[in-house]
């Protein structure tokens, strides 16, 4: 019986095809890793994600509180929706925050900031700085002070990047108390542009929600805390006649 053997040409074609398929393996149409926006995607590291962003030692540097310290900020007020922003409905001004009062209390240091437009104080904010974090105690202008009980955490020590912390307490406006809830989180230091300068700062997000007669209010804000300076940038969404407005503050000068 005649033995059937494929001709040499068939074998050659088979090997060439095998080589092509092998060469294509792992060569997908989406190509290799890369691109101009690679800085926006990092490789997740579950172990590193468990590490806290701040220690108690870092905290002291984030909130300089000597009497007389001042921060001059450029303030921009505009509709929250970028599509609605025009030069006509965008206001620019300057605001200066000064450490007006500092007192050592049982659990930390209580610091009061006075905010000025020119020589007029239009707002005051009181913070409590403990070993565990930076808390907002009260804020407001003349006659419309808002108090948070217990103080609401802005920055917390020992929390990993991005992990949300929850606060539940009372918001007291003009003697009227209502239940309120807030969420906060902190992210690792990163470079942010502040007044044409790049500064390393921690991003801290807070959102406070509480009921009013009309609706449930949500007041989100983002602050960037730079070591040895304090807040260098802040964005808040506020409501003006039921319309959301965006308040941006950017550090110009720090003494």
């Amino acid at each position, binding site marked *: 019986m005649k033995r059937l053997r494929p001709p040499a040409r068939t074998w050659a074609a088979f090997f060439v095809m095998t080589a092509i*398929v092998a060469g*294509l*393996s*792992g*060569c*997908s*149409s*989406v*190509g*290799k*890793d*890369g*691109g*101009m*926006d*690679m*800085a*926006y*995607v*990092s*490789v*997740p*590291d*579950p*172990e590193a994600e468990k590490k806290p962003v701040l220690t108690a030692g870092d905290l002291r540097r984030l909130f300089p509180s000597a009497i007389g310290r001042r921060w001059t900020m450029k303030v921009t007020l505009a509709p929250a929706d970028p599509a609605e922003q025009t030069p006509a409905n965008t206001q620019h001004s300057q605001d200066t925050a000064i450490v007006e009062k500092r007192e050592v209390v049982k659990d930390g240091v209580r610091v009061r900031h006075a905010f000025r437009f020119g020589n007029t104080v239009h707002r005051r904010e009181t913070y409590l700085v403990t070993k565990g974090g930076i808390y907002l105690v009260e804020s407001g202008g003349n006659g419309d002070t808002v108090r948070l009980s217990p103080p609401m955490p802005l920055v917390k020590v020992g929390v990993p*990047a*991005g992990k*949300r912390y*929850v606060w539940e307490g009372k918001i007291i406006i003009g003697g009227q108390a209502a239940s309120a809830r807030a*969420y906060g*989180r902190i*992210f*690792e230091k*990163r*470079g*942010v*542009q502040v007044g044409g300068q790049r500064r390393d700062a921690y*991003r801290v*997000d807070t*959102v406070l*929600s509480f009921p009013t007669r009309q609706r449930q209010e*949500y007041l*989100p804000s983002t602050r960037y805390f730079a070591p040895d300076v304090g807040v260098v940038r802040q964005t808040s969404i506020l409501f003006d006649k039921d319309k959301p407005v965006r308040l941006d503050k950017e550090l110009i000068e720090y003494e």
Partner: protein
Amino acid sequence: MNAPEAAGLILSILGIVVSLYAMANPKRRTIGSMALAIAVAGLLGSFATYRFSRAGRWLPPAPDDMAQWEAKDSPFQDYVLAMLGGPQARGREYRNPFGEVVYWSVVTAGPFENYHDPTVCIPDNGFALTAKREFSLDGPGSARVRAMIFKHTSGARMLMYYWTQNRDGSTATEARMGNYRDIPARFQTGYGAVVEGKQTVIVRIYTVIPPDEPDGAVAQYNLNEVSRATYRLLKADGRKPHPEDTWL
């Protein structure tokens, strides 16, 4: 198994029996051999069609119990499902307390037309692919996913994670378009569906990085949170028996 698939299998088996009977007669051996070859090809084809359709019959649930995330169903529009060859699908929007939204979709992966790679579909409507990176979602040895950044002409960026996940929990990130470079991945899909009987879903989870964000840390944190919950839920659901499971 639906009626056309069953008819295909029965007719093919019938064809094999008839052709074997014909081959028993020496006068009809040649025609019987040809008929047998056609019937066997038909049987294999029917089996492959059935297995591809079976590969797309596992539709896992969406995560419902992620702490501090509100979920809202966001069903696929009919024209999108038609474009994808009519797979089963789920769509969701997850919103966290900061008002940030993560868009979530899972599509069953049966026939090849169910696979539409985001690198091909999205770069219309003002988007361009500006970064691509593959990694393990939950540390070394865990689910491989493909992260992509699509930059819009407005300056906003979309960060998307894409992967396919089998019921056994294994994942893949390769594109499976009708491109010569995707032949190995398509072969893998065909072999997995037909020979190994794998059932697969295609996962796309994405969010927006606002133009004023200095990096994508917040967006990526949110995406990691939703994607990890999804991967773990799919893995757990894949191991459970389902009423529509078949032995074939």
